[in-house]
Every structure is written in C-alpha cells, then in structure tokens.
C-alpha cells in the first residue's frame, strides 16, 4: 500500500472564501473611497490569507513598522517602493503624490497590516489615499484594530467591508484532510480534531501529520477514533 503523505496545500477555508467575497465587494463599489477591515485574534490566518491573495491577484502588501511612528515619510516611501515608483522622493508631499499617481492610473488593492500600532494620523493618510485614488485599502489587524478605526469617524464611515476571521470549522478540517493527505475523514473524527485544536489551523496540521504517521505504521487508510486520540495526544506531548 502506498504511504500516505501530507502535502503542503493552501485550503480555502471559510475565512479565505469570506476574504474573497470582501474583496469582490470592494471592487464593486468602484468610484468611491473604499476601505475594508480584516481583524481577529492572532493565529487565525489573516496575514497568510492576505499574502496569498495579494500574491495571486497582484495587490500591494505592506506591514507597518514601529520606526514609522514619528513620521509618515517612512510609510510613504515604502508604499512608493511597493507600487514600483522608480525615483522615490525624499519628502512627504512629493512621496504622497507619487504614490497617488500610481494608484490613480492603476487602482490596485493595498493591504496594510498592523496599522493600529501607529498614531491615528496614519489612518487619515490612508483615508486620503483611498479617497483620492479610489483604490481599495484593506487594513489588517487584531482585535485592537476595531476601536482604532472606530475612533476616526470619517474613516469608519468609509469602511465598507468588515471581516472578522473566525476559528476554523469542522468542515475546514475535513476539506484540509482530504486535500492534504487524501484521507476521507468522517465528521465525528473531524470533530475530535477540531475540538482539540481550539480552531487553530496550525494544531490541526500538526495532528494530521501525526495521524498520517500512525495510519502508515498500521498500513491502513481507515481512520478510527482511537488513532485520532493518539495523534492528538502525541501533539500535546510534543
């Protein structure tokens, strides 16, 4: 019997599909300032999903740095670099204009991560860029992002799309097991894995790898509750 393997696959979980719907929604609101917000607890796949989407769709992905706290220039210069501006200006206003010129001619989506660690005037800057270019800006962050955005009424009123990344669901576990290893996982067994993971995809992946090792050692593709329990316990013990 051929050994089972766990292939690295990107699974379109409910969160991923919801992000695609959010982006579709932003694209339909063409001609207006368009902002979206993706938030949720750490470890739910927000960054990875956004990077995956940006890579396949040709969007900008930018992570904010603490060192930008005192001035917008670093942020603007990095944005220019990501937009492919050849001669990046050294002052704020020309930088802003250069970024705007690119976005006006090609209003590609811009993902900005960890904006909530910067002062509120950065949000105003992003609002201006979005309003003037009509390019969709999607802000990604953890739970602190919601009050950060709410504090700025003008931004909040322009936040057309919001998405909270939820813990993964049992259906996601079943789909992942099938696509990564070819295993057809019954709902009751997927429930055990889902429960032990607490909705964290990384734990599901770890447990699936353990489960495949166990199945291979037994020379079977029939997954039992006992095998799953051992796989989960092995993962907990490290």
């Amino acid at each position: 019997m051929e050994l089972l393997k766990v292939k690295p696959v990107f699974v379109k979980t409910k969160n991923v599909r919801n992000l695609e719907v959010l982006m579709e929604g932003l694209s339909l609101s063409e001609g207006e300032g368009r902002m979206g917000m993706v938030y949720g607890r750490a470890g739910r796949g927000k960054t990875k999903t956004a990077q995956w989407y940006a890579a396949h769709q040709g969007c900008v992905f930018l992570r904010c740095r603490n060192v930008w706290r005192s001035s917008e220039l670093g942020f603007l210069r990095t944005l220019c670099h990501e937009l492919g501006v050849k001669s990046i200006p050294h002052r704020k206003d020309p930088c802003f204009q250069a970024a705007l010129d690119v976005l006006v001619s090609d209003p590609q989506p811009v993902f900005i991560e960890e904006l909530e660690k910067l002062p509120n005037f950065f949000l105003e800057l992003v609002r201006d860029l979005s309003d003037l270019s009509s390019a969709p800006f999607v802000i990604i962050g953890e739970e602190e992002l919601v009050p950060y955005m709410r504090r700025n009424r003008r931004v909040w009123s322009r936040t057309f799309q919001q998405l909270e990344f939820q813990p993964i669901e049992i259906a996601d576990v079943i789909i992942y097991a099938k696509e990564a290893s070819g295993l057809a996982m019954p709902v009751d067994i997927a429930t055990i894995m889902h429960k032990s993971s607490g909705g964290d995809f990384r734990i599901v992946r770890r447990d699936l790898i353990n489960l495949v090792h166990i199945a291979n050692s037994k020379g079977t593709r029939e997954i039992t509750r006992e095998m799953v329990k051992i796989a989960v316990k092995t993962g907990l013990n490290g």
Partner: protein
Amino acid sequence: MNKPSGESYAVKTMAALAVLVKEKQTAKVREPEVMIEEIAERLFIQTDKQQRSMWSGLSYYTGTGKIIKLRKGVYTMPDKVQQDDSKQLVMWRLLRSRRKVTVTDLREMAAVSRVYASDWLGSLVKRGLVKYINKKYILIKDPGPEMPVDEEKAAKLRETRRLRKKKAIKALDQADKANKEARMAVLAIEIE
C-alpha cells in the same frame, strides 16, 4: 494541420508570444495584446519561409486554443497558459511580502512543485538576492515588485540574437553578391 516540429519557427512563435505576453504583464498591462510585427521582430524573421512558418504556427496554435486571436494581426494567450508563466511572479510576491520563505511555503501558497520552488530559490541565491539560512530563504536585496531580470541569462540571449543576426546578414550579403554576379553574367550575354 500537422503539429509543428520542435525546431520550426512555428514552435518558436509560440515561445516568443509567451515571452511578449509575460513582459507586458510584468509591465502591469492588464490585457496584454501582441501584434504580429512584434513577434516577427522578436524572432528576427528574415525570409518568406520563416514568415510562412510563423503564420502556420499561429494558425495551428489558435486552432488548438493555446493562442487567442483577438483580431487581425493581434494575439494573446489564454489565462491558463499565462498563469503557468506567471508562477514565478507569484513566488516573487510571496517572498517579498513574507521576507523569508521555505520551499514548503511556496509549494503551499504558490501551488508549485518542490523541485520548481527549490530551483527558483536556488537561482535567487546565486544572483545574490536571497540567502539560505537555517532552512529558510531570506530576502536580502529587494529591487521592487517587478521580477528581477536574470542579467546573465539576458546577456546570453542578447549574444545569441547578435550572432543569429550576424549570420542572417552574412547570408543576405552572399545572396546580394550572387545576385550581382548573375546580373553581370546576364548583361555580358546581352553585349555579345
């Protein structure tokens, strides 16, 4: 129509079109269109035979769906074929956004094979753009969102094109000389 052989201009036509479409995509042209003149220029089409071979290839591949004829003299490639050529662009974007990746990361997020990802990352290491440390590939030089051109490969291609052009000009000169000799021979007959 018979499938063109590997060495014919027809097959080269398909390859040239793929490269031109990819160049326009890299330049962020959303719907890349390529004119027949651009393909002919890229291939250094010199003779009627080469031109017929190019047309034959375009006709064959349009019939099989690998090339799309947008209108007279203007072609492009279907999205699926473009995607195969733009996997490197997806990997480049992932590397830039994550700053450090493993082969597994690219297999997962770019849906490429282990060998393809490994070879591509290896080429970036050789070019000094990436460093391999602790089983991770770290981006150390970021020229921007456009895929950096492999200068060494580009230089080799330029040299190959230069030599082909030189050979074609030499053939034309010889044809010219033979033409002049034939003309002289004909004029000599008339004088007699």
